[in-house]
């Protein structure tokens, strides 16, 4: 901007215009022939080595999880990076690629992930895959056979502790009979061959190696999976020192794609639409799985009166809140900055320190303090002014209170940026207006404010976008309340984001799918608003320049 003001004719700053044709070539040749220093080379080798190391470290889990797409991506990225930094060409890419990779990893990927979640029923009870649900159903239905014996257990192997076949050495507490059990069943052992410890546990047995806890827990999975068939059910381990006779009541049958209960004979058939096993009487098993639900989440947001009704009301307040918190803080911040900018003001440094104090406090803590200050009976606000206002109990007072808190927390920032911008406005301009006979108000309206706005508009838009999704400001003060007596879902001060947060992580259980759909709506709204305002800002700059 200062270059514009320096001379009316110079629309181009030196060095930014199209340079002569010879210039870049010489620069490039110079780069090519730049001496390769030992330090430079070492740094390059170390950093590329680091890249290779990180790639290897990330590759093993990917191989283990058989995520081949991820592995291919990783390999391609690493190869691309090596190529890019080993070749002397593609100078601009050398600077752009790291940032682009960060952008993909931390911006694009989460957005895509959110978008893909919005098409599923991901949430509590539908988190994993169908196989996981089946395993969970079967393993949680194992029950102790009523009246069966509890055995003292020692885990042993026939041979090497790490690799030999696992055997359960179990002692019947009533008779003291020791048996060895494996997948083939139980075999009685000769009492002469075994040594039984004080608790009934076998401590040594001929032909077997008794494992200690450390050795046994290294083979934890195998021990949990080992079932020794018996007449009543199967012998399973309960930890490493007890075994019980148990029976899996519910079993999955791939033929009918259903789960049957062997005790009651009830059958739950898989419903791929909802991702759960449903019985004929409508009862569904708790453990479900994640399925694609198409556009259901989106249509629910738009058509379910419980969601769409509040959604638009909330949207309106959301705009009011974002505009209000940005606007009020800007007005107050700018007013104070103007006052302190006046040359007649004394002790400005002291004022500045005092004014920045709210900004220096952690907003997280301050929001909680403000919440308590607005308490009807014990709050400072009511006690100080002798009021009996039920601040967070009435819709409008709660909204006012929230905006007041935002004002207090936000004006120091606006004050700081406005002070900075004011310093950048040359004194000659305002002096010139006063020479022309303009009043201070006129010169402020015609010169200072437009120039301030040009500098601060992007910050105001950013502040608007931030406040649009300012979950802390609401969640820590009112939690979205007060709530209408007949609707606990949507409060008077709820922003879309607090509303979404309640939907996704609230007390009623996680519904990530629906929350992701709402997030996409919010994203679209914020993006549209920001795009329109930035476009207007550009126009504004053209007008003023």
């Amino acid at each position, binding site marked *: 901007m200062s270059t514009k003001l320096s001379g009316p004719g110079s629309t181009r700053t030196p060095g930014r215009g199209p340079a002569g044709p010879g210039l870049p070539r010489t620069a490039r040749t110079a780069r090519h022939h730049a001496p390769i220093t030992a330090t430079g080379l070492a740094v390059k080798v170390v950093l590329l080595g680091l890249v290779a190391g990180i790639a290897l470290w*990330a590759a093993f889990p990917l191989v283990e999880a058989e995520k081949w797409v991820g592995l291919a991506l990783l390999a391609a990225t690493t190869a691309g990076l090596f190529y890019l930094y080993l070749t002397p060409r593609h100078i601009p890419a050398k600077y752009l690629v790291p940032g682009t990779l960060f952008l993909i990893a931390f911006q694009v990927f989460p957005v895509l992930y959110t978008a893909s979640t919005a098409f599923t029923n991901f949430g509590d009870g539908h988190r994993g895959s169908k196989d996981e649900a089946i395993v969970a159903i079967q393993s949680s239905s194992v029950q102790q056979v009523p009246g069966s014996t509890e055995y003292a257990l020692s885990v042993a192997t026939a041979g090497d502790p790490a690799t030999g076949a696992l055997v359960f050495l179990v002692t019947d507490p009533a008779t003291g009979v020791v048996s060895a059990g494996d997948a083939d069943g139980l075999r009685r052992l000769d009492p002469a061959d075994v040594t039984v410890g004080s608790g009934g546990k076998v401590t040594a047995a001929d032909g077997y190696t008794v494992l200690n806890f450390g050795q046994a827990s290294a083979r934890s999975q195998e*021990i949990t999976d080992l079932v020794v068939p018996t007449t009543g059910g199967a012998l399973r381990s309960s930890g490493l020192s007890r075994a019980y006779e148990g029976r899996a009541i519910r079993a999955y049958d791939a033929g009918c794609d259903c789960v049957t209960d062997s005790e009651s004979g009830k059958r739950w058939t898989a419903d791929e639409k909802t991702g759960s096993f449903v019985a004929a009487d409508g009862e569904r098993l708790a453990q479900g799985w994640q399925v694609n639900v198409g556009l259901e989440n989106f249509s629910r947001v738009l058509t379910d009166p419980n969601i769409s009704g509040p959604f638009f009301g909330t949207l309106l307040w959301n705009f009011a809140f974002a505009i209000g918190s940005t606007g009020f803080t800007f007005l107050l911040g700018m007013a104070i900055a103007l006052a302190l900018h006046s040359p007649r003001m004394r002790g400005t440094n002291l004022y500045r320190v005092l004014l920045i104090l709210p900004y220096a406090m952690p907003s997280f803590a301050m929001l909680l303090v403000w919440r308590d200050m607005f308490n009807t009976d014990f709050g400072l606000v009511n006690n100080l002014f002798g009021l009996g206002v039920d601040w967070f109990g009435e819709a409008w007072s709660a909204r006012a209170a929230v905006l007041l808190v935002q004002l207090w927390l936000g004006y120091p920032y606006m004050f700081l940026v406005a002070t900075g911008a004011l310093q950048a406005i040359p004194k000659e301009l305002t002096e010139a207006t006063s020479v022309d006979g303009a009043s201070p108000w006129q010169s402020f309206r015609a010169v200072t404010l437009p120039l301030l706005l040009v500098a601060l508009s992007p910050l105001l838009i950013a502040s608007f976008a931030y406040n649009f999704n300012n979950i802390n400001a609401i969640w820590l003060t009112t939690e979205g309340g007060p709530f209408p007596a007949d609707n606990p*879902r949507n409060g008077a001060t709820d922003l879309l984001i607090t509303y979404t947060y309640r939907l996704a992580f609230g007390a009623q259980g996680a519904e990530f799918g629906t929350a992701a759909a709402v997030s996409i709506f919010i994203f679209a709204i914020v993006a549209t608003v920001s795009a329109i305002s930035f476009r207007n800002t550009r126009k504004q700059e053209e007008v003023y320049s």
Partner: protein
Amino acid sequence: MRIRTAGVVAVLGLALAASGCGGSDDDSSAPAAKESAGATGGKLVIWADDKRTAALKPFAESFGQANGVTVEVQAVSKDLQTTFVTASQQGSGPDVVVGAHDWIGNLVQNGAIDPVQLAADQKSGFNETAVKAVTFNGQLYGVPYAMENLALIRNTELAPEAPKTIEDLVAAGKKLKADKKASEILCLQSGQNGDAYHIYPLYTSAGGYLFGTAANGDYDPKDLGVGKPESIAAFQKIAKLGEKGEGALKRSITGENSIATFTGKKCAFLVSGPWAIADAKKANIAYDISPVPGFAGGKEAQPFVGVQAFYVAAKGKNKALAQEFVANYTTKPDLAVALYNAEPRPPALTAALDQVKGSDPDLAKFTEAGRNGQVLPAIPAMAAIWDPFGKAEAAIIGGADPAKTITAAGKTISGQIK
């Protein structure tokens, strides 16, 4: 020189980018590291909240030393339940987790925990209510170690007599207020969004219920009591104590200020749990504990009984060892006593309770207050209750029409229950 610096910065950025990229591409690097550690010897990972972590550590270490395994106790200070569910889904969760019993429904529906098999004699060592609390769908899902329930804690200087009914309490509180000895009648936390847990004794005393019971003794999510005539009648009684009535229940009394108001001698009666006792002791208040009184002529006020328990993670790396620790080690009284010392809640093991009862008379009083309590439902449907029920409570305390409000809350809740 300038070019070289820029190059270094670029390459550094690239290295970071690669690591960032690798991190986002996979989410299973952590378990790989753990697995390799597990292969060399046994390793048990336990997750608990901050307070319990400190108490668990020595015991976990002695368990590890006695059995030649490594035991790691990790503190998860925030959102332990959701962190656990998410982590175990990704395969990076612990082997054992410590938490409240009302998590069970959610943990089971997400396949995050496995049942625990206890021998009959182990089971009989526990308080019956505690065992019932951790039983879900006929299976024992955790080993309980401590119990908690609400009681009426009263300042004996201000109120020497334990009130028999809530009406007596209100009368006594009003007199104290008139005499300027206290500024509040009763400290029962509600807040602007209500508190279903703390209002529950009054709700039951006035005849309301949450869920009916199924044939096997579990709560039946199909029989929802909220929105039924009993619940409306109950909230009509509660409304009389509210801001437009006696003023004994107020939204300005929140979870943050209720105990402080009591210890600041601004109210003579506090409805709270064992966790409030430490504050009362610190403030040097002469206090006594009695059951939460019910309405005159009403039913008995039944607080929720909550249980803290150890669970075996279904996707842990070392399930056999986890089962061993939970089923055969946490069932011993020593651990329960140590956990009691870390935070004074009545132990669920009868033997442990007997050990500490002598030195702490409050425990017996809390146990007495919870004698007729109801086990906090662990069914997943309970998650749908908290928020709407609490908000309806807050609205009614603030003066909203009970019938309309509670009918709407019942509708919201039944819409949430799948």
